[in-house]
């Protein structure tokens, strides 16, 4: 009962936040609110038992997206949205209202929230719940569906991330010098001492935690994607506290680009190996002595590929944004 209650309260909060995002014009405040929005939605996912999704949404929405948005308003030096009066608002409004009405019409027939007899719960899904643990040997069904049953989707997902990395490099990767900073000052860090000490202490912890998430993903919430995001968050934190140049000394961008490609290649490569061993693409069962052992090994490898690719790409994206306009 309490979960339903929390669910409803959080949903109301999130609705209020969304309206505020729409109505505000100060972009900085909007991005702050977007952080809250992501936290709220992540909590909702947690309440609705989607632990892996909650994990990812928090790391991606409240973490990476927000930081990138901040970087963008810093680069565009725009704090305020201009509200134009000339816009005709009735057209978008009517489009939205029609869309919403069609959707509400569509939901009238939906089974009630949480109904265990709903068609979504009774056709394909029970197979995973009944068989996944036995067939792949992993307790976390989300991981086994993600990496094995629908492993090809996940390959696509990694490629999407990789594409984003390529795209951002294509757009922002070139040297762009802004005119007003002629002096090449030495990066002297003026960030407070406290922050630096704390960061030095926390970053190793975060890295250890990322590794835990990477390899614990078979048993609990987590996996390659989440681990990659957390690891990149650690380096992002390092960059924020110690400066961009220091971060690039620790991990040179050229290495990151190779790592990004490597991650995708590991995933695709595992599939090619399974073909060579006589199975279908991404059929991990042929990798080991027994079916379950093969599945286990395959999932471990592809999760590793995912982790590496996501870590490298997100970091490349962040560093590219952060380094834009650097004197």
């Amino acid at each position, binding site marked *: 009962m309490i979960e339903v209650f929390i669910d409803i309260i959080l949903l109301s909060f999130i609705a209020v936040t969304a309206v505020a995002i729409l109505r505000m014009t100060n972009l900085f405040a909007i991005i702050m609110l977007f952080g809250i929005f992501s936290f709220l939605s992540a909590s909702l996912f947690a309440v609705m038992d989607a632990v892996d999704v909650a994990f990812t949404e928090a790391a991606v929405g409240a973490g990476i997206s927000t930081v990138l948005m901040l970087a963008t308003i810093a680069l565009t030096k725009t704090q305020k949205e201009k509200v134009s009066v000339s816009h005709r608002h009735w057209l978008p409004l009517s489009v939205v209202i029609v869309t919403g009405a*069609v959707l509400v019409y569509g*939901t009238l027939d939906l089974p009630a929230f949480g109904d265990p007899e709903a068609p979504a719960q009774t056709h394909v899904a029970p197979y995973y719940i009944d068989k996944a643990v036995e067939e792949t040997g992993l307790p976390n069904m989300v991981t086994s569906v993600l990496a094995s049953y629908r492993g*090809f989707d996940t390959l696509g997902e990694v490629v999407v991330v990789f594409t984003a990395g390529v*795209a951002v490099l294509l757009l922002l990767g070139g040297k762009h010098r802004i005119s007003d900073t002629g002096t090449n000052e030495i990066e002297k860090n003026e960030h407070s001492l406290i922050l630096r000490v704390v960061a030095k202490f926390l970053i190793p912890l975060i890295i250890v935690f990322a590794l835990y998430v990477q390899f614990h993903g078979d048993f609990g919430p987590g996996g390659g994607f989440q681990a990659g995001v957390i690891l990149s968050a650690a380096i992002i934190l390092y960059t924020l506290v110690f400066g961009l140049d220091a971060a690039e000394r620790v991990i040179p961008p050229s290495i990151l680009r190779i790592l990004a490609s490597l991650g995708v290649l590991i995933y695709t490569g595992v599939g090619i190996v399974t073909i060579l061993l006589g199975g*279908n693409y991404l059929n991990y069962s042929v990798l080991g002595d027994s079916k379950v052992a093969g599945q286990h090994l395959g999932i471990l490898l592809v999760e590793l590929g995912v982790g590496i690719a996501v870590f490298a790409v997100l970091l490349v994206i962040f560093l590219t944004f952060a380094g834009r306009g650097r004197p």
Partner: protein
Amino acid sequence: MMQGHLCILLVVIPLFAAPIAAILPRGRLPWAAALIVTSVCFVLAGMQLWSVVQDGVVSYELGGWAPPWGIEYRIDAVNAFMALIVSGIAAVTLPYALLSAEKEIPEHLIPLFYSAFLLCFTGLLGITLTGDIFNVFVFLEISSLSSYALISLGRKRQALTSAYQYLIMGTLGATFFLIGVGLIYSQTGTLNMVDLAARLPQVSSLNTIHTGFAFIITGIALKLALFPLHLWLPNAYTYAPSVITLFLSATATKVAVYVMLRILFSVFPSDFVSTTPTGDLFLLSGIAGIISASVYAIYQVDVKRLLAYSSVAQIGYIALGIGFASFTSLTATLVHLFNHALMKGALFMAIGSIIYRVGKCHMDSIHGLGRQMPWTFGAIIVGGFSLIGVPGTAGFISKWYLVLTAIEQDSWISVVVILVGSLLAAVYIGKLIEALYFKPAVDSNPAVNEVPFSMLAPTWILVLANIYFGLNTELTVGVAEHAIRVLGVTAE
């Protein structure tokens, strides 16, 4: 041994090559890698189509999991045909791309450029071959994201804004598609297309299915640039680098049409679709699209934009074909997909060649170039005739079939619209030819030569294909008819 894995190799080979291309050194190596990959894929796609036509539908279980639990690749004549179009165009584009891209793309971005190109190619093939509706979404996003990036590489700053506009429209479309898939899933519990087709008839009276259907169709229509959702297309095609314009115009919208056909004719039950106003809406959109886009095209002064509007008009013909939903009309649609890829490919290549020589393609700045670049000019003439639908070119065949259907269905207004559309096409192609050949050369333009052979050869391959498939219809129409029968639509 590899025979059974043909369909997956088609996607995996470019997928494997893309990250490698990204880290190759500058120079021509990334291009060579892309060239080899696309040519191999073209051959594989040909073999795939052959085997499908011979032995029937191929089902490939990814990960070894039986559908609907795992993802399935399901190849029949329709998507094998599409895969052949996509990989064929890619294979002709690449030899052309070498010089054109070197001229238009900054040197240090070349490896990433070919990587993105391969990713886009992978995405398009992935959409085509899959039998899982969510997988369509994933690969749709791969191809879309890479095409946004590729479009933004155009040299004018408008390339950035048009890429942004496309990004917003494309993402809205993809999200609409996602909403639709979610709603359909909530009532059927499955994502596999064959399984969906089996389960949808029992639930097709529910509101949720209607809403889901509407959202999926709207989402694809956005990607397809169906009139009036086409607003992103003219800008995107105008400002993208020449190579990208030619590749996307010949493949991206075609693949979206394919998804539309698949959803309308193999996923949803036909008696469900016929109760909705979908067919009429397509006819309406087709008629409005043909007329308005053709008229717009006439008034354009930028040649690329002119051709982009003409693409919108051509999508109108395709929409007409889908709207009639008969055996002949769908055959016409498929044939037109193929032919339009050929003619727009040839035309955009020729325009790209002009840009290669003079750096722009404004109507005023190309005066007299036809006399200086006879081969390129020849390509434009044949491509243009094909676009108009002159007998003896590929364009005539598809229009002919479309007119036949319209007469069959007593839709005289469509017949008139198709004819008027051709007339308008004659006007804008005429304008183009006049500017190229009959106007005196602009003084500010230096005398130019014909473009190098590596650009002419691909152009003329497409030009000759336009003529060949205009004279010999057995192959295209035969395969298309076979494919339409596979979709479950038969001649009465």
